[in-house]
């Protein structure tokens, strides 16, 4: 007997499974591939609140609290460092945008610090002259998604959740009492609750229950350098988009920017255009990369809704079905809080954090 079937072993699904197991629910986590092997495990690794739209901030703040005790939650530190996130402005107009964001988000607890060019030079001398100012969120940071995301599934498993990897779901039915989930490997599960946390592939589940969403896939272009002397003290991004970069304790710099392409529905590559753009342009933001070499590139498959907001919360058509997908490449930090919100809906009927803005109803005319 199980209470909840979670589809998708990414950070959202695995967090939901973990939180449900913590609350004594009997959970089965079903993953087509390996837990945390898609966008949850291959993303940039930013653990960032700065830059998010205002209505994401309550969830993001809650996630920030959960990240603070990551070892308590999943048993490893996941290379999580709360070192700060620096958003660079390349023009006075961009700096004004950062200033406006700081004003809007005042009171959410981000504690943003605005740095003019002189302050930026003093505090972060390794940033290129192209930056005219920046906004620092001192308690944002970064972590290793390869380690963190699979560890959520392991932690859920330790608390009694059954984790089924390499189990591709072929058929889902609701028999008026329970969901019946059938997998290609012969696995058959049934439970009164079904959590659709299937990332870029979640659209088919929603459509099957009569609430299609206009979800598309996109593929970030990522690369990593060989280990370099450690100079980057914070994770960085650029107002208006462009290259983002962080450096891990081992010295490797991880950079992202631009888009890759799909090789097939499950696999993606960064593409030579985006890779060469990063290699050409990173130098003006990060002059210390001169002479460094990129040793590996990768991408993943991320789900995007047209408004770049996720779908979180109950189905509008099928009682017992909850959604948590479509994080537009920004779900890693939010993941644990979304899992918690879904678990709260199962256990108490409502999420403690406001999630109405993410309802699937917004796609229904």
């Amino acid at each position: 007997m199980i209470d909840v079937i979670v589809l998708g072993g990414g950070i959202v699904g695995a967090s939901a499974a973990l939180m449900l197991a913590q609350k004594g629910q009997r959970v089965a986590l079903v993953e087509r591939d390996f837990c945390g092997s898609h966008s949850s495990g291959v993303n940039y690794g930013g653990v960032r609140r700065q830059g998010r739209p205002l209505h994401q901030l309550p969830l993001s703040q809650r996630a920030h609290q959960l990240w603070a005790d990551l070892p308590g939650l999943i048993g490893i530190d996941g290379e999580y460092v709360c070192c700060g996130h620096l958003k660079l402005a390349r023009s006075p107009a961009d700096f004004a945008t950062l200033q406006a964001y700081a004003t809007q988000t005042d009171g959410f607890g981000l504690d943003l610090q605005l740095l003019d060019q002189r302050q930026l030079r003093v505090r972060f001398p390794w940033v290129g002259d192209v930056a005219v100012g920046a906004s620092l969120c001192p308690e944002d940071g970064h972590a290793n998604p390869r380690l963190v995301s699979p560890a959520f599934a392991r932690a859920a498993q330790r608390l009694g959740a059954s984790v089924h990897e390499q189990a591709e779901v072929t058929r889902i039915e609701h028999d008026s009492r329970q969901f019946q989930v059938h997998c290609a490997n012969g696995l058959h599960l049934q439970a009164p609750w079904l959590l659709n946390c299937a990332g870029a592939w979640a659209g088919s589940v929603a459509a099957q229950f009569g609430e299609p969403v206009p979800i598309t896939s996109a593929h970030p272009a990522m690369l990593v350098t060989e280990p370099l002397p450690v100079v980057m003290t914070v994770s960085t991004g650029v107002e208006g988009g462009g290259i983002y970069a962080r450096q891990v304790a081992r010295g490797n710099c991880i950079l992202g920017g631009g888009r890759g392409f799909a090789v097939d529905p499950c696999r993606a590559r960064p593409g030579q255009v985006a890779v060469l753009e990063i290699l050409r342009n990173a130098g003006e933001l990060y002059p210390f990369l001169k002479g460094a070499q990129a040793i590996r590139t990768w991408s993943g498959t991320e789900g995007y809704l047209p408004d770049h907001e996720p779908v979180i919360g109950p189905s509008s058509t099928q009682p017992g079905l909850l959604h948590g997908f479509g994080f537009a490449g920004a779900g890693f930090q939010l993941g644990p809080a979304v899992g918690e919100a879904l678990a709260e809906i199962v256990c108490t009927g409502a999420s403690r954090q406001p999630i109405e803005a993410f309802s699937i109803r917004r796609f229904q005319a």
Partner: protein
Amino acid sequence: MKPVVIVGAGPAGIRAARTLLDHGIRPCLIDENLRAGGQIYRRQPENFRRSARQLYGFEAGKAQAVHHTMDELAGLIDYRPHTLVWNAEDGRLDLLDNGRAQSIEYSRLIVATGATDRILPVPGWTFPGVYSLGAAQIALKYQGCAIGGRVAFCGSGPLLYLVAYQYAQAGAKVVAVLDSAPFSAQCRALPALLRQPLTLAKGMYYRAWLSAHGIPVHQGATLRQIDGDQRVRGIRWGEQSLECDAVAFAHALRSETQLADLLGCEFAWDSLNRAWLPQRDSAGRSSVEAVYLAGDGAGIMGADAAQMAGECAALALLEDAGSTVDQRRREALQKQLASIRRFRQGLETAFPFPEHWAAQAPDELMLCRCEEVSAGAVRAVVDEGHWEINRVKAHCRVGMGRCQGRMCGLAAAEIVAERSGRRIDQVGRLRGQAPIKPLPFGVEVQP
């Protein structure tokens, strides 16, 4: 019109280029090295004056023929030396040439990327003074240098005796040859090896020459440890040890398959090579339309076979492109290739893969030198329940560094298989990721 492109100017690529040109097609031949010839027929720098006999021994005639062909071709084809193919995507190869990035579209493509040494690490293998067998040979063949004053040659495979012989011939002090294969294995392999009596005779000659010149050859001797502090001081095997200041080691060769992987070629497990290899039909067609495979990059068969396979692939390409080709020639080549493959089976019997290596590798052994991952760290990840090689890589960084698993990937897979109780073909294969070799920041991009 998009050109026919050949990647790799070794025996396979040069023969393919010659065949295409003979049929009226002017190919583009891209090669990472400064000078064509590949590894076995690697040429010395232009201002060096050693004779072909000194450089290539019994293979001097073949080497000169390949170089002669290439010299003839160089002005007639679009030859691009010193050019790295770092990525393949959408009918195009992405190139890096002296810090400049550019790309080339192809109508059809022959991949002849060759091979590197298969490395099974032992404690101490990262000391300065330790080289792969192939690298030791390159130092000698290309630059006329020995890797040390007292050199030990270890591992297994035909190259082991050849390189030891070449070193001794060149005047270097060879202190010992350690062959992990027992003499009995070589006896068992004799019937199959007799298919290529000339090749067998050369192998036996190197072996006999070493003994005749007082160089100790230990068979069934597995290198256990390389001792040293700042650099190599000696080696140990069984209960024995020996002082030396350089070690060359490898267990045969492995195919360079990253380009085929990025091209989307289907791979299959090949038990003879104990490796995942891009699939090809008997003429060299890969699973991807307009992509052909030839030479050691698609399975280790040696230089003679590489030339035949290069010609075969070119003939298949010509036929697919609508040209008339000599079918009898093609059939004859395919027949010879089949015979060499049976000889290759004999070699595998003579120099069997040391199956016990993974179980004996100590936990503290540095497996992945780029990312400094020990055998124990890999085992710890397996003990957490992971068994698929890409997942193991994600968890402990093995194969994630500068070499992208080209050096450590096979050894890591052996450790994963042994620890997880699976067969080596059941732990998956490391997915290829661009760039095939590192790319510099600040690269100049040409349209």
